[in-house]
């Protein structure tokens, strides 16, 4: 079965793309139905911990979008600060997504050597590095 790689990460972010997809395929299915089906499916099968991760990722997307719009509207004057803030969210998002992928039981086959504990330790290591670089770069 296809690996369930990235979550319906931020439900907020996935929703807008859905109607577009269904209209593009030209199927007779109602876009609303698909989204609703996905959402229900998600609610049903996702464990609580993973939902926690997903909400964190949604939060990161929102923060990143806020920073980006701020940059567009107000200007990018402390460019270092904007960059490190933005890449901190992007990096954290990516790392969290990786953690989510690695701990997903569906992907057991792909990550034979990685136990959930190991995945979490990697996650902490990666995050520490990320934030070290960000703090160093922020000026």
């Amino acid at each position, binding site marked *: *079965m*296809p*690996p*369930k*790689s*990235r*979550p*319906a*990460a931020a439900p907020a972010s*996935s929703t807008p793309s859905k109607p577009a*997809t269904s209209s*593009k*395929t030209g*199927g007779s299915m109602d876009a609303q139905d*698909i989204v609703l*089906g*996905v959402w229900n*499916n998600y609610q049903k099968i996702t464990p609580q911990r993973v939902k926690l991760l997903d909400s964190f990722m949604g939060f990161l997307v929102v923060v990143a979008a806020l920073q980006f719009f701020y940059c567009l509207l107000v200007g990018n004057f402390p*460019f270092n600060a904007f*960059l*490190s803030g933005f*890449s901190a969210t*992007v*990096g954290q998002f*990516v*790392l969290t*997504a*990786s*953690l989510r*992928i*690695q701990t997903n039981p569906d*992907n057991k086959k*792909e*990550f034979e*050597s*990685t136990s959930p504990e*190991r*995945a979490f*330790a*990697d*996650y902490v*290591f*990666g995050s520490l*590095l*990320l934030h070290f*670089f*960000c703090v*160093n*770069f922020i000026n």
Partner: protein
Amino acid sequence: MAATEGEQFLKQVSSRNTRGLLRVIILVLIAGAAVSSRLFSVIRFESIIHEFDPWFNFRATKYLVQNGFYNFWDWFDDRTWHPLGRVTGGTLYPGLMVTSGVIYHILRFLTLPVDIRNICVLLAPGFSGLTALATYLLTSEMVTSPSAGLLAAAFMGITPGYISRSVAGSYDNEAIAIFLLVFTFFLWIKAVKNGSMFWGALTALFYGYMVSAWGGYVFITNLLPLHAFVLICMGRYSPRLYVSYTSWYALGTLASMQIPFVGFLPIRSSEHMSALGVFGLLQLVAFVEHVRAQLPSKQFQTLLRALVLIIFVVALGGLVLLTVSGIIAPWTGRFYSLWDTGYAKIHIPIIASVSEHQPTAWPAFFFDLSMMIWLFPAGVYMCFRRLTDEQVFIVIYSVLASYFAGVMVRLMLTLTPIVCVASAMAFSQILDTYLDARSPKADAKENGTSDPAKVAAAVVLPDGLRSTRQPLVGIYSYASKLTVIGASAVYLMLFVLHCTWVTSNAYSSPSVVLASRLPDGSQHIIDDYREAYYWLRQNTPDNAKIMSWWDYGYQIGGMADRPTLVDNNTWNNTHIATVGKAMSSREEVSYPIMRQHEVDYVLVVFGGLLGYSGDDINKFLWMVRIAEGIWPDEVKERNFFTPRGEYRVDDEATPTMKNSLMYKMSYYNYNSLFPAGQAQDRVRGSRLPAQGPELSTIEEAFTSENWIIRIYKVKEPDNFGRDLQSATAFDQGRKKKRATKRKGARVLRVE
């Protein structure tokens, strides 16, 4: 009993621990060989920094060690690029200096006070040992055969393609960068195989180190995305790829931006956009894969394609738009010259003038890689046979690096690691096949019974058919095995011989100190460079500005410790062109330029007496070309050629040539060494005009033993307000009775 004991012993020998120990010992020996084969230059000459760029690195390292890291970071160097100065801390790759600074402080902490010069000299050999180790690790990830890794390490340790940039004393960025390159690739392969954030983060860390060490990091920046992209296109997307690539990119980009010289380039310049693009693409692919899991697959197959296509077009369009509108910096000239070898010559002579940016001559491949050049395709072919994710990497790497190595001589360096890995794979395949002394008969039986297809065939077909009788294909006679193994051994030995010969003869010269053979075979050291630089150090004021062609800027800064106008960090083309103009113009034009730039001394390199071909007259045309790029009306390359298109220095040289400052400085007083009319230029092989050039605005200050370096002092303006030409004529007329032929009349008037 004895036999069984022997067997036990043999088993013990081949047990895992012993093999591991043997492997470690072999690797240590390889590292030792790698280090010691790079010491020719120290033994032949002395522990000295080589060539040009290393002198700057050495000077910067001394500054770092003396003034501490923060001062180094903020270093504004007012002793180069006079009168502009250079923000050195922000315009260099600090990895090399910091590495040797750290080693220096560690050794001091261990109460081993080693001179910083010796650390700098021996840094490259030391790191070459580590490179051999990294190559072993990388190769071991590629194939199961353990011998391939050891072979690759040995190849990497002694191949001239890598030694050329890492002999003792060649203290250049590449000294540590190649180790970092190979090690980063190893970590990347490890990350892709395991799909691990940890390895991805380590890749990013070493990638950051690499960025701090060498501009060639762009190669990694583009190779890893290309690998990921090719994997996606081959339909091999896996969550492992997502984890490893995104964790590398997110961390590595941040890490690379920590270096002031790189700064915002990773999000601004086009060279880094492919990495960003693949990062975005991976997010999309991962997202689509996820959605596909939730919905009927047929629609999403088409949807996926449509989506990828649209995004690609949009991203490309956006990139082009941003590039055109100038938000993303356009490709740099050095980059264009990678695609169009003629580009640099037309547009940026300063890049074309560097010999290591020339296209590679074909013998160089054999010279630098020896037998590996024909083993290399075999290794790449073997990667195609199994084509796992990591072997795709080898294929991509070898294709790209082969192309780049053909375009620029210096990029041979990036080709060398992959050649070592691929040819070690091919060679170990040969060895594994032919060194296997198993008895074929047992094999044959086993094969025959175990293969159901063969059994079925045997049932159906009559026994008489040859194809069923002999299912075993292979070479089992000892004679043929011995032949192949013997031939391989001979090739290996020839390889070692070739490498040692090339290293000792071609790559171990410091080029600051020259060596020649006297008629009796003994070695004669020509030490003109250091003689002249030491003269400058001793006899000129501390802030005397030296004008020379940019090749010698770093050496003057490092050895003579005097401010220079231009140096090997060619960041300001106009300034270099100014120097070029001063060198290639008449004295009347050059003098104001030199006065404006407060030049006190002019230094030229002249090889005519010794037959030293790397002198300034041979580089002169580049000065002319670079100056012509800025002042096309005042300096014209055509005027330096005779009507028949020859570049001559003898009687038939053009007036422009004869009147140029460079020509005059090179041949001034040269006649006095020879009997009248016999002056001979041994580089150009031509007889010089009987009447030597005369100088009025500068005067000879120093000429080294073999005339390689000539230093002239720029005269002060005349006290009486005359122009220097007439003042000189006046002086010559009064002091000497030897009237100059041109100004004969004036001499008479004085008397």
